[in-house]
């Protein structure tokens, strides 16, 4: 059984009187430990695909099995639980809670997993150690650089030990130095066996991945293995 099995996945939206087919019949199988980049021009359906992979949305038709969970037709509460246990998100805009410290931000997924406060702290510290931020544990986001903020976000994505990490334009808000550092960090995670998806429109970001999925008009145009 593969980690991810996507079969004939489609998603359409109703925009006023027009029906938009954002995704039309995508098939993809992903094994544990792969590093995949998703590329495509805007409107190609890469955001929709990412939302479906991240269980933030359900497909109109088709099937999506993640780590033995058939998530294609799950109810909202079950989807929330799958997101909590199986998926680590990294966003372009970091999405950290401004009022909370780095540690509290990293603890957040564990709060919804029902982990005790003591264990939460220990695991959050462990995750921050992996991104080399142990010296910034009690800092709030506005006291951190962009690169550091994104590393806090990665620690938050790692803390629940998820099956997959989904990064949506993770370097989009970083300067080139911080961006390069971050990509190095992602490479390191891949080497340790994490499964990564990176959505990007930058070729040199995508080239860090082992395979690049090109989307166009809601379909997979080609898969480039490297």
């Amino acid at each position, binding site marked *: 059984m593969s980690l991810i099995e996507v079969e004939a996945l489609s998603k359409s939206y109703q925009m006023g009187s027009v029906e938009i087919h954002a995704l039309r019949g995508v098939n993809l199988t992903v094994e544990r430990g792969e590093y995949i980049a998703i590329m495509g021009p805007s409107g190609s359906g890469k955001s929709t695909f990412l*939302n479906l992979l*991240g269980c*933030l*949305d359900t497909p109109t038709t088709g099937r999506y099995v993640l780590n033995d969970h058939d998530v294609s037709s799950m109810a*909202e*509460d079950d989807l*929330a*639980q799958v*997101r*909590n*246990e199986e998926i680590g*998100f990294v*966003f372009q805009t970091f*999405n950290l*809670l401004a*009022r909370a410290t780095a540690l509290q931000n990293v603890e*957040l*997924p564990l*709060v*919804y*997993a*029902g*982990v*005790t*406060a003591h264990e939460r702290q220990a695991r959050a510290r462990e995750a921050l150690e992996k991104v080399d931020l142990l010296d910034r544990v009690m800092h709030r986001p506005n006291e951190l650089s962009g690169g550091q903020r994104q590393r806090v976000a990665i620690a*938050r994505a790692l803390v*629940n030990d998820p099956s997959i990490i989904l990064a949506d334009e993770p370097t989009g808000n970083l300067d080139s130095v911080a961006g390069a550092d971050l990509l190095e960090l992602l490479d390191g995670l891949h080497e340790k066996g994490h499964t990564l998806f990176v959505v990007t429109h930058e070729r040199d970001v995508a080239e860090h991945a082992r395979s690049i999925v090109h989307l166009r008009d809601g379909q997979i145009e080609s898969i480039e293995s490297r």
Partner: protein
Amino acid sequence: MKLRAALLREIGVMAFETLRANKMRSALTIVGVVIGITAIVGMTSLVRGFDRSFREMLEGLGPNTIFVAKFSGISFMSGNDFIDLIRRPNLTPDDARALERLESVRFIDTMLGSGLSNSRERISYRGEETKRIQILGATEYFAQVGFIPLEAGRFFTAGELQHRRAVVVLGQTPLESLFPFTDPIGKKVRVAGEQYTVIGVMGPRPSPGGFNVGQDDLAVIPYTRYQSQFGVPSLNWSGGQHRDVTITVVPRDGQRAVALREIEQVMRIRHGLRLDEPNDFDLVTQDAVARIWQQTTQAVFLALVVISSIALLVGGIGVMAIMTMSVTERTSEIGLRKALGAKPREILWQFLVEASVLTLAGGVLGVLLGSGTGLLVHFISGFPISLPWWSFALGLGFSATVGLVFGMVPAIRASRLDPIEALHHE
């Protein structure tokens, strides 16, 4: 609704932090709640305190004492017209003498000069003069019936009553103004010009609320003497002549019901009432007064609840407005929480708890301000207060409920946000 206890605790902590981060806004939001709860707790303490001291005073009358009156608050409560009441036959000292013979009666007091037409006179001693005070004509049982302790000397006797002796028992007010330093017993004073001998002094009398309402501005003389000096005071009112005679009966132990029945029979016979005619006099007992009092305090409480509810409603609307703003401001945070695995009901509870922590803080403040107001009034004016624990519980319960109820709509909105849209909200 199942919610993990650890998460609830976490939500509570988060709520506190949010409020701490928005002190000014939170403070303004809860003003209405604070006012409402202050009103509830403060007014409860005052009303309850007054109520308690009134009941104590009532109990001072004795549970068995029966007042025979031409009319009373009870006849007003049962919808009688004032004109009809004033036209009822007057009670007389002879009525009292007739009732005195009843088996069930232990002793009886006749009082002249109390009530509507009370005349106020001055007492003088060696050039010193009191203000106008109430002069009561009574029997030798006056002090026993009213449970009034004697501070010095004695009360007059049946013999002195019968022989219309010019003897007087002073209340605290004339005592203080005429005999601040000397022993009054045996001294000759003038009551409205006529000479009396002081034979006794009454102790302070209880009053509702512990206020000085002139309850000690009095002197008591034998009612026979009163009749010959002042006559029976009367009041003319649209064709009815009203004379104030109050008869107080203390029945023998365990004979109250019998006494009530017998007094009613005797009075009906004396007034020549036919079987189908209603009583034209009132028999007032402590429990009857207590019932009327209870109805009054209940009405006050009801008014209090209505006023507080309006304040709480205003406070609640403020909470709703602020929570709606908060949800809008924190849309992307809600999206993030959902992405990280928060279930809709967990988001719902987060905002509900936040709203009720907010209003509960207002409630705590209101309880403190309300009981503080009560205590302040008590220390400044001596007004009796009572701070029952249930008024605190009520205040806190109400304030938390306001948060839950008015936080519901914004919280439901937050819980239903689409995670994708919310995440990308700026």
